[in-house]
């Protein structure tokens, strides 16, 4: 009942014309920010902060949150059409989204991404509203050993991301882990693998590697096939552009999977939406009847990660709003914004400012609808990009990649890194190494190492801390199961042969 009246109050706040306008502005800006590679929600929100000082805090948070979840919608666009991840979280969407576009289903992929985002985004808001306080306690029960187990689970997904050769996938993952280890060590302040370069003190930005390996590698590879065949087929007519019934049916489980996984991982401070999208993609593949088709353009390979990265938004708001603990870069800046507006983020914020909390929740329902309406009609427009000949398209991808990377750090050094990783991506394509495991290792390596060392510092070097806690032990068992899946499959195939 309390929730019901709260929500009514929230809609009363969020449905005022002014707040609908701010919600729309936020969603619109977010979509654009999502489409531009490199420029992400944290930087955008920080830059817009000074403009919100004069605003009512509720309107301001409605707009800034719109940028946050709006960017998640927009991020898939360039992943699908150009193989350029628009946000770090949409890197997984490249795997099947871009292949769908190459198979002439680019419009459908965009549609599925929008629908998955809508379903999971709405799910995230509902959960945020219903179970925020108890879930925040669950997040606190998570300590370093649990994070380590979670990261192990994520890393085990490599066996599901591997193409033909497991050895090549593992090698690519090791390179990713190595890159993740570069930079200043948090625990000892020593620099590792910086080769005396001050620019490497913070390690290598994930965006640089992802754009280099995926986008530039793809362009370089395709330039060799000079016949102009790379022009992507575009179906005519709106009906053929949107996802069809079979494709939507294939995604049924993915919508649910993405929503739940994204939300749960979102609650945990320090895990993040990229991890969420990798794990939900892995789960989708593990339970699929045709796992071998993943990576060739299956719709559920788009729906799961896109759903996960949108549900993550609702999850990340849980510790932020209920405990005042930011779980991601974006929520950290939102928290800083609360302080600037004179609000006091912390365990009492919801109680003290019910109109802000419920107004925000209600605005997120509205925002998700706005984004769906905003995104679906844009599909035919975006799909036009695919009609461009490669002589036009490739320089565009090149330009977007360079500008995107430069906008993150304003650093020329990062552009030379981008070139290096473009060449690496090209070589990997030529030698048939999968790129996703490299990205996976890079995303997880840092957090995993940190969690392991924190755990061991807590236990004074005793490894049993990793298995003596029920949550972490449970996740490690799951990890072992995931690792066993391909072995089972092999054994099964072998048995089948033997029976024949």
């Amino acid at each position: 009942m309390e929730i019901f009246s709260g929500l009514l109050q929230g809609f009363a706040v969020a449905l005022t014309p002014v707040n609908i306008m701010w919600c729309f502005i936020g969603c619109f800006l977010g979509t654009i920010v999502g489409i531009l590679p490199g420029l992400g929600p944290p930087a955008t929100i920080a830059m817009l902060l000074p403009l919100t000082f004069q605003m009512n805090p509720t309107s301001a948070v409605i707009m800034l949150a719109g940028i946050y979840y709006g960017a998640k919608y927009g991020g898939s666009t360039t992943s699908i059409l150009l193989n350029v991840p628009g946000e770090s979280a949409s890197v997984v969407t490249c795997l099947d989204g871009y292949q769908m576009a190459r198979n002439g289903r680019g419009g459908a992929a965009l549609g599925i991404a929008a629908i998955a985002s809508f379903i999971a985004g709405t799910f995230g808001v509902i959960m945020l509203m219903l179970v925020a306080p108890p879930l925040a306690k669950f997040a606190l029960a998570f300590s370093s050993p649990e994070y380590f187990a979670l990261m192990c689970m994520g890393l085990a997904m490599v066996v599901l991301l591997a193409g033909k050769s497991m050895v090549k996938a593992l090698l690519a993952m090791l390179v990713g882990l190595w890159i993740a280890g570069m930079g200043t060590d948090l625990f000892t302040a020593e620099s590792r693998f910086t080769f005396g370069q001050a620019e490497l003190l913070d390690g290598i930005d994930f965006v640089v590697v992802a754009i280099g390996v995926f986008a530039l590698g793809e362009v370089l590879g395709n330039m060799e096939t000079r016949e102009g065949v790379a022009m992507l087929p575009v179906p005519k007519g709106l009906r053929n552009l949107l996802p069809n019934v079979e494709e939507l049916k294939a995604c049924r489980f993915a919508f649910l999977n993405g929503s739940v996984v994204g939300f749960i991982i979102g609650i945990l401070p320090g895990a993040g939406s990229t991890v969420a999208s990798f794990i939900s993609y892995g789960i989708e593949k593990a339970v699929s009847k045709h796992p071998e088709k993943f990576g060739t353009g299956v719709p559920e390979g788009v729906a799961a990660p896109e759903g996960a990265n949108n549900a993550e938004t609702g999850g990340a708001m849980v510790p932020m709003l209920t405990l005042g603990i930011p779980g991601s870069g974006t929520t950290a800046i939102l928290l800083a914004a609360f302080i600037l507006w004179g609000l006091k983020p912390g365990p009492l914020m919801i109680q003290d400012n019910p109109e802000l909390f419920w107004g925000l929740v209600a605005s997120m329902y509205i925002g998700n609808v706005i984004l769906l309406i905003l995104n679906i009609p844009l599909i035919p427009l975006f799909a036009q990009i695919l009609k461009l000949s490669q002589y036009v398209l490739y320089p565009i991808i090149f330009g977007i990649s360079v500008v995107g990377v430069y906008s993150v750090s304003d650093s020329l050094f990062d552009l030379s890194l981008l070139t290096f990783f473009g060449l690496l991506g090209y070589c990997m394509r030529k030698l048939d190494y999968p790129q996703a495991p490299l990205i996976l290792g890079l995303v997880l390596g840092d957090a995993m190492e940190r969690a392991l060392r924190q755990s061991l510092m807590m236990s004074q070097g005793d490894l049993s801390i990793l298995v003596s806690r029920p949550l972490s032990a449970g996740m490690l068992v799951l990890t072992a199961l995931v690792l066993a899946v391909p072995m089972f499959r092999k054994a099964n195939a072998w048995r089948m042969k033997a029976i024949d």
Partner: protein
Amino acid sequence: MVKRILIAGSVAALVAANAGEVAAQGFKPTRPIEFLVHTGPGGGNDLLARAISNIVEKEKLLPVRMQVTNKTGGGGITAMSYLSEKKGETHTIALFANTWVNGPLMSKEAKVTLKDLTPIVRLVTEPGVIVVKADSPYKSLKDFIDDAKKQPGQLKQSGGSIGSRDNIVRQLLMKNTGTQWAYISFPGGGERRAALLGGHVQIMVMDPQEAGEHLRNGSLRILAQIAEKRMASLPDVPTVPEAGFNIPNYLVIRGVVGPPDMPAEAVKFWEAFFAKVAKTAAWKKYLADNLFEDGFQTTAELVKFVDVFTEQARTVLKDAGVKIYR
């Protein structure tokens, strides 16, 4: 990127329209001021820089606009080397923080120290608080230290990197009392607090503002405050020496620094300018809102202070087993 330029442009137009005059003293800024910070948007120094440029704009203290530039990386080292390349420049100034002192000590890659640049003024000192969970058995700092004595190495503290105040205060306390407890680094403030609230560590050093809300709702308890004298907002909490542990007060500082070889008249101008900023009511309100303290020091005072402060950090970090490069 496009948006960034657009926003910068509109802010610029706004500021230019409002800008008033400032008393001329030999040097006078004629171009927009580049106000450099080492944190990304939303970080500590970034927020401070934006607050300053807001005050300057509202009070019309400068005829040109102040443009905040973020040069992130290496905990300040990127920003420092960028500033050091602007030799003799008068229109670029930066905000420094503790990491500008400690970072170069611990990093082989650093090429300049704060002394190689031109320190101008110190603006802020930030007190800290030592906190435990509200249901913790420790009612005083002495309770915690006594327990740490009983079980050396078993208790834990969550904190930031090894060069942060959290660890330096721990080192000073351990040395003073001959105790040992573990220090577990977390990259984000949120994770540090989650580790404390989740009961995974026993103690933590925080900004008073960070602790404020948890105190109000009763989830945390303050054992002692790290400050020269008790903060107005915490009249009943003892400082660390008052709690019985006579360790030097390690400050968190923020101030303004210019590039190497900044002409003397420009240094004078900026010193006078920030002295004026520090006297405004808006600045005093900003300090009070953030539970900062007015730590204003003139150029001459700051230059002396930097030497003492660097030496203090060097000794403590060396004791902590950190590799010191200079």
